[in-house]
């Protein structure tokens, strides 16, 4: 199992829209399917919005469970705002899906 580095601004001009996020999602998804781990680099990106985070990362939950994502996906050269939003979004979506299962 290899580790693939993805520097986001090598693939999108900005981290702004759902479409931008989807480009990153596809790259990660391809690596996961090939059995690789992924490190996403946020060089020159200091803050993200929820549309980008949802499309790039949260949609992975539709295919992979959270433990798999945690062990296969890491983030580098990020900021407190980026880290906090990503973790908060995952925590909320995981909790919501658990509530759907138990109710």
């Amino acid at each position, binding site marked *: 199992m290899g580790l693939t580095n993805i520097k986001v601004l090598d693939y999108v001009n900005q981290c702004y*829209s759902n479409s931008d996020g989807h480009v990153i999602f596809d790259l990660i998804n391809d690596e996961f399917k090939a059995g690789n781990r992924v490190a996403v680099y946020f060089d020159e990106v200091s803050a993200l*919005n*929820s549309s980008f985070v*949802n499309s790039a990362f949260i949609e992975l939950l539709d295919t992979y469970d959270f433990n798999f994502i945690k062990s296969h996906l890491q983030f580098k050269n990020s900021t407190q705002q980026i880290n906090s*939003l990503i973790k908060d979004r995952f925590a909320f979506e995981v909790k919501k899906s658990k509530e759907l299962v138990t109710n």
Partner: protein
Amino acid sequence: MKGFLPEGEKFLHIQIPERFTRETMYGLLSRTIDNDLQPISNEIHFDFRNLRFIEPTGITILSNLFEWLLVRNVEANIIYPEEFGREKYCPIKYLDDSMFFAEYLGGEPLSEFSHVRPTTLPLQKVSYSSSFQWLQNVFVTWLAGRLYVTRESVDGFRVCLDEIFNNINDHAAEDTGCIFVQQYPRNNEIQIAISDFGVGIPHNVKNSHNPFLNDAEALYQAAQKGFSTKSTPKNRGVGLDNLITSAVLNNKGTVHIHSNNGILKCTNVNNKVEFTPKLAQGFYPGTLIEITLRTDNIENITEEEFSWD
């Protein structure tokens, strides 16, 4: 549009109230838009001669209303005083300096002495497709310059607007927002007023979830984390929540949302967001968001090692 004095009764003549704010706008709106949400007349003359005070958000409201009328082929004319003061507290001067009259009277401000104030980011109509460039090249550049901080330091403010533009793109029939920004250096605040002229948040919430909610309840619902009208498959209902978290919880600012017949006030009380929904005195076509942010609460953007724990 062309400004001129009324001569007959073939048109609707509407006085702009002496104090024009987001609280007093409803009288003006109800005299302009009928109960079927149609313009009351095909020709309306807006009379600014009694105006004594206008808040920054009022400029966005007027712009939004004029845009709403324009797409409905209404001839909206402006009546302005022949003379007005040059002092900065004169509301006509403020509108002129903000390029309101230049926008709606054919390109030039009323007075040759009018100019954009350094504390103002003048009225802009920004489409979604140009919003990222506008935010980076205009908003962030202006704000960082005004506050003497790095561009990265104001990224939290920029993310608030990212969320609004992505919301406009997801929900509004028109993907353009009217935006106006005013800095209050003495109060360490900036106020951002942005409006679209779409169908409004309560309309979408009631259509997709519960038609029996009133508009204030619908606005409150829309602001709750995870609540989504699913207007697009990508929509997860966190844009408004992230805006409110960034502005109210993190920055200790305030957010007011006016949409259709609802108003939602979001304030920071003991480090929690307090939501105050109420029914409006009238109808707002689209969604108006006023964000007041503290400029003395800017957190330095610092790199941080990511950990899932």
